């Protein structure tokens, strides 16, 4: 087990190198340069050249890359052109807000998704099953920015029970968290529904019933536990998707997280911040995937990580 984890971590280092290199190339291949954007189109060319040199962007690309890799190894990403302070510090400062949003939305998605999945899977083909199945398709189909705006109009403007945007109180978290959670809720619900429906026909469920266990014990102790396996996997895999969704949701709700930071930084070609944010997010997604694998093997003893097989 430990050998497998170490092996996965080594692969992770390669993945991080790949992510860091890819983003280095992507931001530089994108048209437009930071100096012109910072100074505006009316800046004299010599001023633009001087700022380009100050930012170190006048050096040959391979040299920039080597120096960048050297810094990445030391977890240094340089100063943000826009914020005039270390890029990673800026990202770290925004990360708690994004983490808060992701944690809240994952909690909502898992709880609501499991509940809906149990409702639908407990009686496949029933009315509830059809409502939940149809509803989850709809939830997955709505674009996140549209859902967000609709929730603002309903709960902030029409009902006036929640703030429309920003941060500061727990109430501010509700609408963005729900917006981000909705498509994920649908995924969890559909997966749970299928899993529960299948599990309820397994022989061990019949055995459990024949042992005299109550239906509640059967459902929660046997069916639900086994139904959780794919759900745990999807949570791990969905972290990347949630980060992507957070970019949109944070902008709609003026939520001061990494998403808004990345959007601002990409628009302004603030390379250092984009690189730092991508690196950190790649690391987080990788960690979640690894954690999902480990939990997966713990939940289902039949599954052994490759070394144990």
């Amino acid at each position, binding site marked *: 087990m430990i050998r497998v984890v170490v092996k996965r971590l080594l692969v992770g280092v390669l993945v991080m190198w790949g992510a860091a290199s890819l983003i280095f190339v992507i931001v530089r291949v994108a048209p437009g340069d930071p100096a012109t954007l910072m100074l505006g189109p*009316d800046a004299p060319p010599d001023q633009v050249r001087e700022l380009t040199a100050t930012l170190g962007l006048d050096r040959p690309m391979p040299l920039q890359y080597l120096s960048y890799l050297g810094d990445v190894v030391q977890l240094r990403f340089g100063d943000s052109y826009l914020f005039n302070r270390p890029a990673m510090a800026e990202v770290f400062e925004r990360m708690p807000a994004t983490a808060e949003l992701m944690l809240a939305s994952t909690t909502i998605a898992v709880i609501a998704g499991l509940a809906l999945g149990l409702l639908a899977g407990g009686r496949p083909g029933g009315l509830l099953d059809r409502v939940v199945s149809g509803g989850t398709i709809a939830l997955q189909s709505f674009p996140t920015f549209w859902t967000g705006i609709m929730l603002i109009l309903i709960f902030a*403007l029409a009902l006036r029970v929640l703030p429309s945007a920003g941060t500061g109180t727990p109430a501010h978290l509700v609408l963005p*968290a729900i917006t981000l959670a909705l498509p994920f809720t649908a995924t969890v619900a559909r997966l749970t529904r299928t899993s529960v429906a299948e599990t309820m026909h397994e022989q061990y469920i019949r055995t459990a019933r024949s042992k005299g266990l109550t239906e509640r014990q059967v459902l929660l102790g046997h069916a639900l536990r086994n139904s959780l396996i794919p759900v745990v996997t999807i949570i791990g895999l969905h972290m990347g998707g949630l980060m992507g969704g957070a970019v949109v949701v944070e902008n709609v709700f003026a939520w001061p997280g990494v998403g808004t930071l990345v959007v601002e930084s990409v628009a302004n070609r603030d390379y250092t911040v984009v690189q730092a944010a991508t690196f950190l997010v790649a690391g987080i997604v990788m960690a979640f995937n690894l954690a999902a694998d480990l939990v997966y093997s713990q939940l289902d003893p039949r599954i052994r990580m490759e070394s144990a097989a």
Partner: protein
Amino acid sequence: MTRSPASGKAWRAAVGLALAAALALTGCSTTSGGGGGSGKSEITVAGTYPIQNLDPASPSGGSNTGTQLVAQELFSRLVRVRPDGTVEGDLATEWKANATASEYTFTLRKDVKFSDGSPLTADDVVASFKRLLDLKSTNAANFTDYTMTAPSPDQVVLKATKPDAAILRKLSIFYVIPAKVTGEDPDFFKSPVGSGPFKLEKFDPSGSVALVPNANYYAGVPKLDRVTFRTMPELAARMTALRTGEADLIWGIPDDQLSQVKSDSNLTVETVQSTAVFTMWFNSSEPALRDAKVRRALWQAVDFPTIIKQLYPETGSLADSPVSPVTLGYVKQQPVSYDPTAAKAALTAAGFDFGKKLRLQFANAEFRPFNQAIVSDLQKIGVQVDLLEKEQAVFTKDLLALNWDVNFQQLSNPTYDAANTLGRLYTCKAKRNGYCNPELDKLLAAAAASPDEKERTRLYGEASKIIWSDAVGMFPMAVKYAYAWNKRLTGFTPDPAGLPDLAKVQVSSS
């Protein structure tokens, strides 16, 4: 219909989980709809602009509207421009130019103090100017090689390298900070000391700035207890925040949303003629567009009055000059009438190649319908146009490389002086639109050098006439900015440059 034991249990378990989910939500929520503007004398301003740093002289802050918006509340300037376009003293009580408009002497207001209580002196002004030039922001480019000295404790002298009559309005973006601050000093701007009406209470680059009154402000302590600027990129969120009372002031409201805010009895809505003009340059260096007759015919082929009436009924009016009516140098020109038949005949006579597609570039989705309407009108006379909506960075790169045939921009003018638009963008040296006319260059140089404002206006009028009749571009629309604010605010004046001053705003007790 009966329910099996399994589904009954499943139901109960599901309801339990659903309740848990609901608790997870409601446990961390309140029913309060309001956030900002909570106190009697506190207001919240919601804007689209991110405010990433507070240094208006830094390269990134110099061209950032959000930074300038806050800077004018934190720091004083020698002079500033009133909403009507005239210049008023801020730190300077009077000023005088020499006969050639190359040297300006400013007399400083006495007994001005910074927010920390220390006196503001001529040395602070001189050091701030030097710092502005050293940091080489886009604003510094207005004063390349200019020098400032302090011949006496209450005077500063600004010397230009050439006659520059626009200096006063250019100085409206020069802010004074303590002399001890040199170079980029991020630590200072975490807790800046200025002599403006407010001082910083809290700055969160992720989206909000809170200001409180500066008790040492020379013109009297502002009546507001706190001003919070919140960045809200999404229009729907800004509009909702205004209507729910979470925000007290927003602007830049599009026409299709104005009726909503107007119907709200708690809000005041006003439009103000801005310094901005929709400007659609033709790339005169392109063979197809070299002939002024071709450019003029293309202008004639678009029914701008109808397009404006349909899309901008309240915030647009047909432009009659390349600069806004609130700008120094504005002189009304003869409107170009819509006549597609005459336009097609003129294009045919000029040998225009109808098979060639023109590339019309713009940035920002808000301008898409306007440009689509133009493309549609041009197609009616057989002119083919590729409409290219570009991301800002790509747009700027292509703009400077003249990689376009027609370029759409909303050109605003924070200095309210035609020198900043006509003088800067239409000279041969500027190479901004492929147009070069030595006669125009002479007029613009003379206008920039004359200390007499009437003479400058006359000269800019002559220059505008050339730009207009040669159709260097199409100048379809003069832009108004729509402001909406909560009626509890009094003393607020909408600003034509989109940089409203809040020093005189109050919150009414009723």
